[in-house]
């Protein structure tokens, strides 16, 4: 039977519904909330896994909300790349939620804990919807749910720096949302439709007018802020480093990527004419910004003394990677960008969770304090090392595969300079990652910095970290599982 046809919508609504029901449970039995929150995300993951193989590799699954036909009703459109990203979102949110319980008990004061889980589920559900929706106004609504819950989650500890970082985030995020809303208004005013596929058809019919150019630029700027593309990244380092670690992992590992993906969909499935001056002209500008991001993020990461700050700047650099893959406009570049979303999501989430382990156990945030950490927290340190290798792009890890395709794509597109920038970015990554590893493994700790007895984080915090770091290894070794279908999907998009 065709029950699986309803799975995409259930994947989105189950976490959102969970977010609605959780406060009631929190009122009755607060202790159960962390466990109950796992249920909706687990269900979504399961449904996503059941959907594998159901989607035609060169097409998409279309779900009509309430049975209304697409141009009139809201459509959920799930192609192979979309499902891939939804599974990445499900997996990482699930693991970070497993991680959250101990961390939140320590960092967040009593009354706010239920709120944390509610916002967490809202954010996960919104991310899933954001990836899957085929309606551009729905895209905006999901983006706002995502943005609002992430503003609140950054500030959830309520201390000085957290509130300040969150406010900075709002000051940049809210105007960018309004720009997106305005751009959608422009699109609607000239085409009279909100469905993405329908929009693409009508734009191809009418050709490019000034209104469309303005709306495209507004969309690029709006999503550029959300995805923290280089000159618009100001909010990112503070927000990502000061948020509680599981949230940092989600913001850095997923949110920016999902927003970059939205821009991909807008570029490739709405403004489809890839040869037009509009898209290409903007792509050139975005390419320059992305190249600057790779170098700037890398250099700033080297200069940081704070571990989480360093990882956050590394994200700025990696967003540059993703955008450079997209602006190459070749199948390899696009594949590299998609694979980098997966690999960066896993590795960055792992790094932030490891940093969370150090903060949880010792309260150490500075890189210098990690001297000799290996002797006391070997599990965390090895997971950190593995994820670092992926960030640098050393062969057996997924980072190598994605960087390989990114560079290949740029070379094939004739963009040698960008390929060089990508390589330089890897060297910068090696500098900032290896410095931390050097401190961890080869330096003696300060007297009394680490207690004598041997201890590491509790299993519920180590398991997600190891799952993530082993996943980077797995997707590096078995990249042939995904690469061919991603290449096919990329050629289909182009």
């Amino acid at each position: 039977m065709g029950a699986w046809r309803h799975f995409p919508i259930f994947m989105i609504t189950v976490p959102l519904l969970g977010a609605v029901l959780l406060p009631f449970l929190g009122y009755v039995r607060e202790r159960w909330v962390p466990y109950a929150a796992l249920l909706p995300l687990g269900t979504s993951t399961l449904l996503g896994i059941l959907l594998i193989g159901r989607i035609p590799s060169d097409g998409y699954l279309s779900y009509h909300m309430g049975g209304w036909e697409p141009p009139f009703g809201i459509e959920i459109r799930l192609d192979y790349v979309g499902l891939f990203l939804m599974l990445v979102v499900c997996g990482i949110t699930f693991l970070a939620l497993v991680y959250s319980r101990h961390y939140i008990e320590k960092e967040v004061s009593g009354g706010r804990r239920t709120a944390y889980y509610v916002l967490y589920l809202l954010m996960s559900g919104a991310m899933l919807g954001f990836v899957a929706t085929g309606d551009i106004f729905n895209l905006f609504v999901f983006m706002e749910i995502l943005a609002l819950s992430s503003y609140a989650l950054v500030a959830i500890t309520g201390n000085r720096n957290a509130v300040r970082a969150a406010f900075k985030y709002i000051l940049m995020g809210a105007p960018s949302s309004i720009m997106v809303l305005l751009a959608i208004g422009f699109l609607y005013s000239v085409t009279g439709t909100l469905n993405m596929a329908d929009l693409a058809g009508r734009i191809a019919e009418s050709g490019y007018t000034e209104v469309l150019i303005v709306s495209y630029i507004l969309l690029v700027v709006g999503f550029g802020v959300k995805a923290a593309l280089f000159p618009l990244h100001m909010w990112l380092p503070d927000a990502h480093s000061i948020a509680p670690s599981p949230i940092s992992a989600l913001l850095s590992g997923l949110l920016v990527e999902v927003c970059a993906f939205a821009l991909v969909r807008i570029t490739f499935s709405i403004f489809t004419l890839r040869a037009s001056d509009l898209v290409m002209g903007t792509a050139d500008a975005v390419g320059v910004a992305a190249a600057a991001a790779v170098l700037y993020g890398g250099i700033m990461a080297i200069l940081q003394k704070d571990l989480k700050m360093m990882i956050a700047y590394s994200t700025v650099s990696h967003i540059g990677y993703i955008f450079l893959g997209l602006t190459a406009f070749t199948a390899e570049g696009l594949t590299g960008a998609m694979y980098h979303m997966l690999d960066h999501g896993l590795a960055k989430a792992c790094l932030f969770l490891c940093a969370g382990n150090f903060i949880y156990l010792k309260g150490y945030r500075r890189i210098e304090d990690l001297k000799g950490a290996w002797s006391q927290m070997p599990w965390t340190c090895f997971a950190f090392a593995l994820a670092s290798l992926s960030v640098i792009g050393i062969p057996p890890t997924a980072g190598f595969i994605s960087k390989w395709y990114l560079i290949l794509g740029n070379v094939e597109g004739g963009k040698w300079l960008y390929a060089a920038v990508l390589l330089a970015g890897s060297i910068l990554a090696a500098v900032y990652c290896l410095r931390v590893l050097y401190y961890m493994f080869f330096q003696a700790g300060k007297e009394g910095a680490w207690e004598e007895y041997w201890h590491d984080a509790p299993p519920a915090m180590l398991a997600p970290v190891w799952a993530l770091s082993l996943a980077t290894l797995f997707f590096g070794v078995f990249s042939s599982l995904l690469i061919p279908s991603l290449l096919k999907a990329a050629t289909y998009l182009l």
Partner: protein
Amino acid sequence: MRLLHNYHYAAAMILFCLGLYTVIVRRNIIKKLIGLNIMETSVFFFYISLGYLDGGIAPIRTGGADPSRMVNPIPQALILTGIVVAVSVTALALSMVILLYRQYGTLDVDRLMREEEPEAAESGKGD
């Protein structure tokens, strides 16, 4: 003549730019938020004017009403969602302003950002 005909669009864009200017230039957080709301309102205004029809009627097809005189309901429905979103953003931002004021004793953005920068890396654990 086209501008004269589409004066409402021009008004919306002027409001939008004024709002953005306020958000960027003003140092007081409350004024920034007011600018944000002006931006939002300009977008609402733009949407509503899309669906507006002089002497239009409600889009209900009973009794042989003339479809060409019906107001387009979609922008209104959309912007209702937009207003809800805007209200939530404003409410969240204002609640954070209260927290900020309690902890820093100032609403001046420059002072807020300057005051903390050197020790931002240090603290964060605890407090």
